[in-house]
């Protein structure tokens, strides 16, 4: 099993969610996060004093899938989250040691 962590632009969330649903991935967890890579922030102003906003709001999506699905999921997210502009985000693939469904106690493949 692998966890796919995708950091994307917040307004792309619905597109990514729909695209993942279409390929059969029906569960995910999201976080509201802030970050920056090459996309720097911007300057704002309060009562005449300027300040720099470095961190940009993003959404982090976590999905755990069977190893055989990883490539398809990564490709789907990439396609649906892409805008072509700086700040589109990144995808990371991590191994998952175990998975358990809390309600039933099912493990691993039966749990995701």
């Amino acid at each position, binding site marked *: 099993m692998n966890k796919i962590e995708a950091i994307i632009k917040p307004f792309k969330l619905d597109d990514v969610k729909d695209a993942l649903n279409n390929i059969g991935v029906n569960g995910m967890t999201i976080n509201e996060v802030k970050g920056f890579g090459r996309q720097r922030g911007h300057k704002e*102003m*309060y*009562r*005449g004093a300027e*300040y720099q906003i470095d961190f940009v709001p993003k959404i982090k999506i976590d999905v755990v899938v069977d190893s055989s699905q990883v490539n398809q999921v990564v490709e789907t997210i990439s396609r649906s989250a892409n805008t072509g502009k700086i700040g589109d985000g990144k995808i990371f693939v991590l191994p998952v040691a175990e998975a358990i469904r809390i309600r039933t106690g099912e493990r691993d493949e039966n749990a995701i």
Partner: protein
Amino acid sequence: MKIFIISGLLVLISGVRTWAGDEAPTVLTNKEAIALVQTHADYVWTLVAAALVFFMQAGFAMVEAGFTRAKNAINIMMKNLMDFSMGSLAFFAVGFGLMFGVSKTGWFGTSGFFLSDFSPGGDPWVLAFWMFQVVFAATAATIVSGAMAERTKFVGYLLYSVCISALIYPVFGSWAWGSLYKGSGWLEGLGFIDFAGSTVVHSVGGWAALAGTIVLGPRLGKYTKDGKVKPILGHNMPLAALGVFILWLGWFGFNPGSTTAANKDIAMIFVNTNLAAAAGAVLAMFTSWTKFGKPEVGMSLNGGLAGLVAITSPCATVTPASAIVIGAAAGVIVVLSVLFFEKIRVDDPVGAISVHGVCGAWGTLAAGVFNIGGTSAKIIGVQLLGIGACFLWVFPMAFLLFKAIDITVGLRVSAEEELEGLDVVEHGGSAYPDFEVSHAGGMGAFGGNGLSNTEIAAEKMLRKPVEQT
């Protein structure tokens, strides 16, 4: 049907006439009745105006909450609540007597403490007048809470609040307004014009605020080591704007109500008040637009208030056209003043010193310059004298008071307490329990300029601003 109604009315009227007194009306009783109606109208207008000015407390609370951080919102509410509540009691016990009591010297009153001028069954005008005056005293007191926000010990603040309502405000007030009741002031005797209190109320509050901010020092994280300003964002601009609108509304009681009489004079005062506020807001907006490249909401809101403060002294004695000029100038002055005080490391989260102190002085001067009956060196001189006398009384007294509080119970909270937020530290609660409002380093949502634990310890030891990265 018509005949029925008309005869019914005739019966009613003659019935009322015979009920309304034993004798038929005479010229003399008519005159007394008319005077009584006027007196009743005076009461009604004065007390309605007092209620409007009371509502300004809500305005101040909202402005201060909006311009400061969420983790201190409860503390702001408590300070505002207590400014009015303790102020009312202090003004009842001591302040009113000092301000409006019989004054042999012309420097302070010596009668009327604990509202002794009123006895049940006696003339209640003193009650209406007191009610109108107490809301003014509370306005002066609450001006200071904004400037001293986010780092003042609650106990220390309470002590100050009692003293300004009991002593500092009423003594100066007696110089300018004592004769409105039983007193007499040396300043008003010279012809000092301050109709509704640009100096008596707003500059008193403003200079006390200046003293407080100097004794306190700036908030943690406000300045870098080389003195550069790091803005600490207010957490709710809509609340701040709501506060300004409420203050604007309340000012329609503050200025016209100062006639304490129901007559036609209130019309021009209403108009002057509104035009000055409008001009102040517009000019402040344009000033901020020119200086910063975008019209800025905080400055524009302060501009409206600046116009209101400035027109408070001249509101009854200038033309509407002059009111626009006075308000417009205040709008420009307040922006420059806010930037000035920030630059000299006087940290005033809401701009109270600039809005109330500086623009109060400007309005008082303007009352002399734009005086409807014409100006003169003497008139302007007396205005300047009043402005100076206010500063020389209020600032040193407030400074000594804050120093004394600092030495005894302490005026400022510790660095950890300030970073944690006063709501949880001083009041054991959170204004927004559903939200995470306390950020390490005390800077709003974005920006992440937190202080590390080492820096907090260093800050605490040295009581100097720590360099921000």
